[in-house]
């Protein structure tokens, strides 16, 4: 919400001398039964209104952000000789997926202030709850959250991966893993100069279960009773069918 508001504000400001246009290779990702991840091409162009900025050293950050989820991070500790979840930190909002693609190392192109304002890097995106942590060091828990999701390829940081040609055309590939959560994925482009964001643009990539997946998921949530009955019917007929088939073979 905040980001959308800021973007609207920014686009209205006359100081923004650049306009961004952005396209995606697909406007929708369908999770079907055989879904095995997907590559999305993010491309676009920068429209310059003065010759000066065309000469300047520009950089680009592209982010793809999955739906926010309330998340709990547990830490194990040894109790009575066994390892149990002993400490927890609540995170109000952590994206289920987050990819950052940049033209150069992010520390060299993004200033602290711009990051705070636009919430681009992971520590800015992940929001732990304000209270109820006890004596736990919240930073350790959010670091762990990032580490685990990075290992699972759900949080990605690809520096040098975005290409900016002649300060005008840009493109980058975002690799969506197979274990995607459905929802609206926000694709944002930030144009940077001297560690400041000078222009930005966002669009939405829809990730939806499709076909059989969609049908099963909806049934399980909207008609759980019939879903359960259907599971049992399938199970019983499969169990009965298999023994019947084997009896035929035996004869």
């Amino acid at each position: 919400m905040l980001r959308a508001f800021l973007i609207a504000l920014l686009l209205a400001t006359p100081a923004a001398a650049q306009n961004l246009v952005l396209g995606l290779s697909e406007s929708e990702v369908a999770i079907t039964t055989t879904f095995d991840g997907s590559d999305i091409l993010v491309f676009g162009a920068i429209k310059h209104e003065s010759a000066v900025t065309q000469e300047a050293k520009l950089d680009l950050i592209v982010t793809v952000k999955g739906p926010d989820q309330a998340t709990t991070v547990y830490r194990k500790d040894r109790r009575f000789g066994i390892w149990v979840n002993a400490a927890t930190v609540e995170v109000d909002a952590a994206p289920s997926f987050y990819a950052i693609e940049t033209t150069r190392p992010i520390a060299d192109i993004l200033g602290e202030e711009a990051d705070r304002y636009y919430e681009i890097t992971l520590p800015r995106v992940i929001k732990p709850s304000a209270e109820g942590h006890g004596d736990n060091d919240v930073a350790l828990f959010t670091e762990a959250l990032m580490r685990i999701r990075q290992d699972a390829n759900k949080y990605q940081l690809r520096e040098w991966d975005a290409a900016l040609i002649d300060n005008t055309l840009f493109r980058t590939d975002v690799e969506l893993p197979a274990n995607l959560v459905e929802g609206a994925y926000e694709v944002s482009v930030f144009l940077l100069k001297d560690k400041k964001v000078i222009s930005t643009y966002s669009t939405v990539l829809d990730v939806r279960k499709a076909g059989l997946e969609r049908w099963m998921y909806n049934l399980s949530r909207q008609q759980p009773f019939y879903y359960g009955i259907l599971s049992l019917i399938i199970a019983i007929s499969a169990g009965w069918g298999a023994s019947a088939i084997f009896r035929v073979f035996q004869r």
Partner: protein
Amino acid sequence: MQIYLPIAEVSVNAFLLLGLGGIVGILSGMFGVGGGFLMTPLLFFIGIPPAVAVATEANQIVASSFSGVLAHFKRKTVDFRMGTVLLVGGLIGAALGVVVFNYLKSLGQVDLLVKLCYVVFLGVVGGLMFIESLNAIRRTNAPAGTAPRKRKNHTWIHALPFKMKFRVSGLYISVIPPVIVGVVVGILAAIMGVGGGFIMVPAMIYLLGMPTKVVVGTSLFQIIFVTAFTTMLHATTNYTVDMMLAVLLLVGGVIGAQIGTRIGAKMKAEQLRILLALMVLGVCSKLALDLLLTPSELYSIGLGGH
């Protein structure tokens, strides 16, 4: 071939699932056990969320027990009366188990509960079975002379009230012990995603004194209804039954079970039992080590706030 599971929301190899179903099916056919106690931990190991693994496995057990119970119906080796009494206990137990399961899930301790249950029950049952079958092998090797075990010995069980006649089993005992056995098995079904045959069968033979020939059919009769009920409870309260996962596992499972039954018929009972005991102890120690050794990642992520 990767396949996306709609409820578990993970993508796994379809052949891996078919293969797992097949292998566990062969083992369950060989040993005459449901196989839930092997399949559920294997699903944990390949990355299926524990809550989904437990609920889906309950659904799969319905399938694998159904063909078994049909065969027992034909041979008239099901004690319906006893089965119904066990079932009443089982339904109470399953409901209790799901309540406990959901409570611990909200505390973030459900993994621990499931794994602890596995370690305790697999350890005890595997250990007892191992000692018993070692003794049996020693007995067959030793010259004859040991007296056969006396069945239907009168114990405290016969002093309890609410007696009932179980004609097929040839018993006249109180309904309290079978109901308690049923409750325990129902709790285990809901928490561990198992049929509970590995607890119920010994309890029926040693505790209730039922004749061996009706034990398996009667336990299967109870297991079908209790696991079906558990499936419904998990499906309606947790939405964790994954139909796609269940279908893949049971296709492999029912085929494997038919093959396993044929292999099992060619082996000696003592050999089978000692193999099964070793396997149970193997799964148990793997899970125990996970709890006892320092994990490589101390942190884990759960979805949803409190």
